[in-house]
Every structure is written in C-alpha cells, then in structure tokens.
C-alpha cells in the first residue's frame, strides 16, 4: 500500500509539474532562449565559454547515442569511433580539399553513418551484451586505424591547424562568439531532428524494438532494418559533433577518441535519462562541468564516470530526468480536428 501511494503521489507531482510547464511554455522558452543567446555577454571568460561549448558538443553526442541506446535499446560502447570518424574526415576534407565547414561536416557525418551501416548490418542478430562488445571493438579498431594509418591520419601526431568554420566569409572563433552560436545552431538542429524522428512511426518502431523485439517483429515491424537505421542516424549525428569539435579546437589526435570518451557519452545518456531529450542536456552539463570544480575531480573524472554508470543503473536506471510523462498523448492536429468534428456531430444528434 505504501509503495503504491508513493507511486501515485510522484505521478501526481509529475503531472502537476508538466501541466505547469505546458501552461507557461512560451515564457519559459523565451527565458531559455534569452539565457542561451545572451550567455556570451554576461561577462564570461574564455575558459567558461569553452566549457559551455563542450557541454553543447557532448549534448549532441548524447542525443546521437540516445537514438540508438535510449530509444532502440542497442547499447553502444564504441561511439567515440563515430565521433573520431566525423572529426578526422571533416578535418581532412577541409585541410586537403579546402572545403568549407558545412561540406566537411556532411562528409564526416556521411562517412560515420556509412560505418554505422557497416557495423549495424552484421551485428543484427547479436543480443545485448554481445552487440555491446562488438561496438567496443569497433571503437578500438577506429583508434588503431587512426594511430597507424600515418599517410592519411598522420598517426599519433594527429592533425593540426584545422580551420575554424566560416560563414559567408566570416570566420567563427571563440573570440567573436561565432563558435558558440554555431554550436547552438547545430544543437538546435540536432535536437529538432531527434524530436521529429521520435514522434513518428520511426520512433515508435525504435521503442517497440527496445520494449519487446519479438512482439515488434510479429506486428510487422522490420526490426533488422530499424536497428540499422538507428545505427545510421546515431552515427550521423555523432559525426556532425565530431566535425564541429575538430573545427573548434583546431587539433585532433587519436587519444582524443578513446574508450573513456565512449564511457563518458554513455554515462551522460544514463545519468540524464535514457530515452529522453531533456536528460541529454542536463547529463552533459553535470558531467562536463563537474571536473572543473577541483583538480582532484579532474584527475579522477573517468573513475567517476564509471561510478555514475553503476550507481545510476542500480538505483535510478531511468536517469535523473527519466520520468514517464503523465500528460495525455499528443494527438496530431488533423486527428484533433476530426475528434472535434465527431463531438459536434454527436451533440447535434443528441439535440435532435
């Protein structure tokens, strides 16, 4: 009885909170936009700016991984591999071919998603742990290739002097806050894409696979196709983040894309809330900002990421922001209109 009452009160609380947010969503949205847009002008130094941009980048990475792991339930421990492929490809395209940021980023993301396809296809039949091991292997293989393919990647020396992105000829840097706003634009786009995908038959297919893959198959969902699609979308988003990271920081080497990074990304997803969009921002903010708090934290941060993973999975697997919405299902506009039409039709027949 006690547990049920606790559940009901928390559901109630969630409902009240969500109703409030829904009611005031426009002022809240404007306030958030104002904070985000005005952030560079509240007197933050370059150091803080860098952290903010990294939070943005890791939010993108988390959103990418979330599509595969949070929604489709396929755990990837090698996402640093896609991050690296995006970063290296974009950098090489802009360094060797002189292409602009957008072209380079798309090239990077495309190659990353192609690798997602190659990785997804043969691993279709693998369940749970086995798939995760393969993804872990993938991440390591990517790093190995980067370290040893000297001709192309410059091996352990890495790539330097990667150009900053430029828009209409204007170079975007930390100094002129261009990089910060580009991060916001990319993050907004990626968030939008994720929402559009999730709130459609594709998102439902992803979730059905996570919930009960056999039942999904038996209902006519082509689970193999959708698992691969999840890999491809996830890798594409991760690749974009990689391209942006490389362009922002100007220098990348294989050691920027280790298994530790894969762990960090998945810790963010789990801490924030698997299968939620909002959790990705909060998880990223917490895990990127906290090591800056003390030297000790910084040195042992990867230990902490691992501890976060274990503790969250044990005590709160849904993540900090992982509550189930208690608001009614949002019907598409045309359906709402149809329902209204029917209500009116009923009322008229009742009057008669």
């Amino acid at each position, binding site marked *: 009885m006690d547990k049920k009452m606790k559940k009901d009160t928390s559901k109630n609380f969630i409902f009240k909170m969500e109703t409030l947010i829904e009611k005031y969503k426009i002022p809240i949205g404007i306030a958030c936009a104002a904070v985000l847009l005005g952030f560079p002008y509240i007197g933050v130094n370059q150091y803080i700016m860098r952290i903010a941009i990294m939070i943005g980048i890791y939010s993108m990475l988390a959103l990418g991984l979330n599509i595969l792991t949070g929604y489709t339930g396929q755990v990837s421990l090698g996402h640093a591999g896609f991050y690296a492929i995006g970063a290296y490809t974009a950098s090489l395209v802009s360094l060797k071919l002189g292409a602009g940021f957008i072209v380079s980023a798309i090239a990077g993301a495309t190659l990353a998603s192609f690798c997602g396809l190659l990785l997804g296809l043969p691993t279709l039949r693998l369940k749970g742990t086995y798939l995760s091991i393969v993804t872990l292997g993938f991440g390591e293989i990517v790093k190995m290739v980067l370290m040893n393919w000297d001709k192309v990647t410059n091996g352990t020396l890495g790539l330097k002097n990667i150009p900053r992105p430029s828009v209409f000829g204007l170079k975007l840097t930390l100094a002129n806050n261009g990089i910060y706003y580009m991060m916001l634009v990319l993050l907004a786009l990626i968030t939008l*894409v994720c929402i*559009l*995908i999730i709130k*459609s*038959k*594709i998102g*439902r*297919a992803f*979730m*059905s696979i996570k*919930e*009960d893959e*056999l*039942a*999904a*198959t*038996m*209902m*006519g*969902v*082509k689970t193999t196709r959708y698992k691969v*699609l999840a890999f491809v979308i996830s890798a594409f988003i991760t690749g974009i983040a990689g391209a942006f990271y490389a362009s922002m920081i100007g220098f990348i080497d294989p050691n920027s894309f280790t298994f530790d990074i894969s762990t960090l990304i998945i810790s963010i997803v789990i801490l924030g809330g698997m299968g939620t969009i909002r959790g990705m921002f909060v998880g990223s903010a917490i895990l990127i900002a906290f090591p800056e708090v003390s030297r000790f934290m910084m040195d042992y941060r990867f230990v902490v990421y691992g501890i976060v993973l274990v503790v969250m999975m044990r005590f709160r697997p849904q993540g900090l922001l992982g509550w*189930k919405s208690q608001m*009614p*299902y949002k*019907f*598409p*506009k*045309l*359906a709402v209109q*149809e*329902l209204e039409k029917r209500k009116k039709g009923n009322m008229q027949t009742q009057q008669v």
Partner: protein
Amino acid sequence: MAYLQVNSITKQFGGLIAVDNVSFEVEKGEIVSIIGPNGAGKTTVFNMLTGVYTIDNGEIIFDGTPIHNTTPYNVVNQGISRTFQNIRLFPNMRVIENVLVGTHIRTEYGFFDSLFRTPRYKKEEAEKVMHAVDILRDIGLEDRINDYAQNLPYGEQRKVEIARAIATDAKIILLDEPAAGMNPQESEELLRFIRELRDKGYTIILIEHDMNVVMNISDRIYVIDHGKKIAQGFPNEIANNQSVIEAYLGGVKKDA
C-alpha cells in the same frame, strides 16, 4: 481450397517431433478453435503459421498464397496477426502507442516524410491515430488511451493486445489463450467480443483451454495431443468424442 489451408505440417526440434503431420482448414468468417492438453503443440502451430518457425514438411496456404517458411513480416503483410500466450505488450509505451505499432506495417510514409513533416505524413499519421482510437473505442478501452500499457489490469492488457493485432488490418486473427487468467465475467465479455469481431468480418483461430469459451464460440474444433491431430468436428461432436475426453476434456459447460 479453404481460405487458410494447412496441409500436413511438421516441426521437429532435434529428436522431438513437436508437430506431426497436422492438417486443418479455416474458411473465411469462421471461428475455429485448436484445443489440446498443455504441451500438445498448439502454440508451435501458431508459430509455424506466423513465420516464427520454419516448417520441416507440408505447406500453409492463405488465400491461394503459400505463406510457410517466410518472414513474420510477410505473414502480417498477407493479413494474419496474432496475440501471445503470455501477454507481450510494449509496457512502457502508452495503450494508443501500442496499437499504433500495429498500424506500422500499413503506414506508408517514410523517413523523409517524418523529417520534413510533409502533408503525406500529417495526413497518414492522423488517419492511423484515428484508426487506433476507433479500434480502442470499439473494444471498450477509450478511457485507457493515454495510459501506459503496464499499468492496465490483466484483462484490459489482453484487450490491448487484441486491438494491436486488429490494427495490422489482419484478415485472420490468431488468439493464443485469450481467456487465460480471466474470471467468468471477463470470459463472457471476451465471448461477446470475439463474436463481434467475427460479425465485422474477421476470421478467428483460437487456442483456448477455457471450455466454456471454446464450446460456445467455435464453429469447428481441432484437437491436438502430443503433436498429432486426434479429432476434429463440431463442438457437440468433440464434446462426446471418447479419445478427446480421454486426452483432455474435463467438465464441459454448454449453452442450449
């Protein structure tokens, strides 16, 4: 040839013959029950019908098209869908979302339609949502549309599973022990509901242990024991069949 023609299907797992040369047929609009003791091979037959298992022998022909040894997708596409012995809903998805997954196979819009919210997407998404709402309304679950599937009482979860199967626009619905765990009142309601389904034009194949349901709703019955068909016929024939009674039947309740 019958609407669903099943000819001498066999399924073997290593040394164990789970289904041994079973044949049956179902005409359009019939309600046919498959009964038999636990472990007789009834669910295995369903699994062979729906593409979960390949068949080692025989053929399954639906509306003139062979459907044995194809994918579950193909079977659903042809128009056969099922429910499960132990309920397999998507627990953390809402009731309406569960049913919407049923409409997935008939939903034509693709990735780019979703991404750019094209008119095709908007129209079809609304249509499918209305379809799901209508199915849930017909089944009496209108008030549960927004609820998460795992929060529903057992009987209603079974109904959601049936709604989801209907949403695939199936012509034949395979119900695997739909009355399991139901009290007498719920089974009566289920009876009524299955009759309504048939009146709407669905063909139903039922695996069931609840003899009240089986005897009162079936047009014909097949009895399976140890993987073999041991009897077939009308309910009153089956009720009086000696080998069936020996294999399986306990007390039988029949309406007049």
